[in-house]
């Protein structure tokens, strides 16, 4: 118990307060990602446009969650919580698409 307490206070004294360069680094990375995604959208990559835009958005989201929201420096429990919502959402999307993408019009049923 004492050990856990000491660990926790150490974390809040040292691990939690991030140096300014991390915040500004993430900020400029997010701006670069925004410029990149707007630029890539003007190039026709066919179906890859969607994948590239979502990959860039996913990377930007990960940066915000890990650094601005401090999840990188948080407890395992917060990790699990922050992931749970997104995992559920992906499950949701996959099952919905599995339905809509496999529907075929049935002859004679309008």
């Amino acid at each position: 118990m004492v050990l856990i307490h000491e660990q926790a206070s150490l974390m809040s004294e040292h691990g939690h307060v991030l140096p300014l360069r991390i915040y500004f680094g993430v900020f400029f990375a997010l701006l670069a990602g925004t410029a990149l995604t707007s630029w890539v959208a003007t190039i026709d990559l066919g179906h890859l446009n969607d994948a590239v835009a979502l990959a860039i958005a996913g990377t930007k989201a990960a940066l915000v969650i890990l650094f601005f929201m401090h999840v990188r420096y948080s407890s395992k429990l917060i990790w699990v919580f922050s992931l749970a919502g997104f995992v559920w959402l992906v499950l949701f999307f996959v099952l919905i698409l599995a339905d809509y993408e496999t529907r075929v019009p049935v002859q004679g049923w309008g």
Partner: protein
Amino acid sequence: MSSRTEGALAHHFETLEQQAEAGALGMWAFLIQEVMFFGGLFTVYLVYRTLHPAAFVQGSAHLPIDLGTLNTGVLIGSSLTMALAVRGAQLGRGKNAALFILATMLLACVFLGIKGLEYSHKWHDQLVPGLNWNPGPDADAHLNLFYALYFVMTGCHALHMLIGLALMVVVARKAWRGGYSPGNFLGVECLGLYWHFVDLVWIFLFPLLYLLGRHGPHS
């Protein structure tokens, strides 16, 4: 914003660290619920875009990519100032935190101003389903689905920003008056988490509404 303790430890917690951890965890539980809320809207988008890809290409091509990009930058900037506000509170600099929250509020207002400008253009172009809808003879039969989703999704996002602005007034006041300390700044931290979540939603809304479908299957 569960922390109402004026620099004190609530009686049901053993340490301030435990109290802060429980508070942040509760905020994350709330944010998961928010993920579900916006997830429902994103699912509607996914289904209708799958069913009517041409309508989404046409709708997306009407949105101003430059204003959308600019607004994304503004919102990312507001996330930075909010992160710096939380850092100020962590270090016990209440006035510093309050000023960064004020900067965040200014950027949020710039975002909402640009958003309002876009809305007014849509109204002028008669592209508001249900209220002012006259997209012309070349419009896809399902174009109204795209614009209905555009207004509902960006509208819900803007509503979250307005709620965030109201919370910022409360937290900035308390921070300015020295209501937080390095071991007890849960109000600022939760406000930060909320604001970064609002930023996250926009990070996905921007490509899905403004960019995706620009080079999809053209009708």
